[in-house]
């Protein structure tokens, strides 16, 4: 029996599946089958990847609570923040994912994808602060963070309840990993994350078997605090973070790192040769530590397939040359 080979190769690329099946983003958002078809098309075109992903959509939970949205490019963006106080929010019934259209579409797509693949599937929920920002508007949430800590906490408690239920439903449908997308964490200081956001992320992650915390952007100053978040198994960080420094200084615990090739600047816009060099640099940088080779964030549907081929082929060759045979 051979030990699981590291690094696992798991680019966050399912959105490329949208192009592969000749669909538009709009088709994926409202149709569970089309979503599954796109994700499965990606798996089929790039079979060597070790983890499959659903297609990222950070608006699902807010839409589930009635927020208005518009398609902006390929992403549905919340255009109106519906709530002005925690009282108003807490008067809402907690949505049942199986009975809520935006959530149900994604749950059904997870069921469909997981039935048709033989590798682990990762799906997404947003983090408590990010959902809070969708519901109240980020500026209002920031004001609240400064002026009324109790109210801020009430809101995140509520958003956590929604997210937790939805995450459990995704797991029940076949998602092995749940990625908690918390881009708003980086808006606040690490101290504030520790004091007011972390516990809510921990509570969500506690109910999950395998939880990944993903924060976009330059999170270099937050890395240690993300790593200290209990119940999180993996941390997914964007391309601006120096993984070498993160590995040496901040992540001495038991958490795996996932990342972090630039999905746009490198994977979409550069050449296969440049990609090869970037991938080798990262793998060499992370040598001696188990980690998951991935992209810093979601790839765009327009990424050239030959670029992702170069990413995967380079990683496979490097892994073969650097894996110690532990056959027993």
């Amino acid at each position, binding site marked *: 029996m051979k030990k699981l080979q590291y690094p696992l190769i798991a680019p966050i690329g399912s959105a490329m599946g949208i192009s592969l099946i000749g669909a538009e983003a709009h088709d994926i958002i409202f149709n569970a089958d089309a979503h599954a078809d796109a994700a499965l098309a990606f798996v089929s075109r790039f079979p060597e990847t070790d983890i499959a992903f659903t297609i990222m959509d950070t608006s699902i939970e807010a839409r589930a609570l009635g927020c208005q949205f518009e398609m902006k490019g390929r992403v549905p963006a919340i255009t109106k923040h519906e709530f002005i106080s925690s009282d108003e929010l807490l008067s809402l019934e907690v949505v049942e994912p199986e009975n809520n259209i935006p959530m149900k579409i994604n749950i059904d797509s997870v069921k469909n994808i997981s039935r048709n693949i033989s590798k682990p599937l990762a799906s997404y929920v947003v983090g408590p602060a990010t959902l809070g920002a969708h519901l109240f508007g980020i500026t209002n949430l920031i*004001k609240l963070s400064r002026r009324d800590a109790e109210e801020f906490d009430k809101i995140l408690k509520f958003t956590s309840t929604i997210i937790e239920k939805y995450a459990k439903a995704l797991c029940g449908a076949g998602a092995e990993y749940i990625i908690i997308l918390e881009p708003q964490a980086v808006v606040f200081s690490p101290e504030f994350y520790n004091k007011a956001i972390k516990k809510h992320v921990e509570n969500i992650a506690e109910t999950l078997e395998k939880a990944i915390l993903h924060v976009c952007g330059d999170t270099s100053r937050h890395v240690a605090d993300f790593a200290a978040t209990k119940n999180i198994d993996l941390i997914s960080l964007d391309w601006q973070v120096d993984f070498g420094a993160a590995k040496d200084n901040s992540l001495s615990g038991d958490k795996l790192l996932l990342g972090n090739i630039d999905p746009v600047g490198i994977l979409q816009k550069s050449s296969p040769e440049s990609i090869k060099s970037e991938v080798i640099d990262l793998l060499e940088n992370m040598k001696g530590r188990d980690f998951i080779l991935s992209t810093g964030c979601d790839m765009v549907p327009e990424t050239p397939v030959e670029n992702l081929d170069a990413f995967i082929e380079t990683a496979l060759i490097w892994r073969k040359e650097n894996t110690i045979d532990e056959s027993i």
Partner: protein
Amino acid sequence: MNMVDIKTKKVDQQELLMEKSIQSVITAIDEFDFDNITTIVQNCLDEGIDPLQIIQKGISKGLDIVGEKFDSGEYFLADLVMAGEIVNEVMPLLKENMNPGQSGQKGKIIMATVEGDIHEIGKNIVCMLLDANGYEVIDLGVDVTTEKILEKAKETGAHVIGLSCLLSTTIDGIKNLVESLEKEGIKNEVKVIIGGACTSEGLKTEMGADAYAETAIDAVKIVKNFTESGIAV
């Protein structure tokens, strides 16, 4: 003590009082004292301090300090937004008390987030900083078409256009605007500054923009440079 001495002492005391009041505006911004900023500014006005002085010596200075702390890593984006909200809270009061022509006398700036992109925090911070620094800011909002920006630039005779762009899928909005300005023959009359997560010095050159601002504070410095040096007035 003769009359001159008495008069000088009185002026000194007044200046001291004014400095103290202005300092309290600076402190309120730096300490994010949302609850008291209006009272503090009202006190300054009651003491006869000119609104423009309050903006230039108090609010601008307070924002500079917050900006410096942001640049040095002590403050985060939430702090910049909070400082901006505090300023937004008192700007109407200050504008009400200004003489006609005092507001926006430094130049006209159009601000917009490019078409297809709805991110607004960075743009809003730049708008607020420019406003506090005496510029007339024409904020066109988010997801703004090239045509709308061009139309506004021609209508207002703006000196600078600030374009915010976070999504790399929307960078063509920058190029389209620059090309449209050239086509209309007004490229030399208005400067284009770009900023936002997906922009860079390289992108500025590639797209034909005039400047790249890495932070909101940089954006204000660049606008000041353009307008004060006569490059864009």
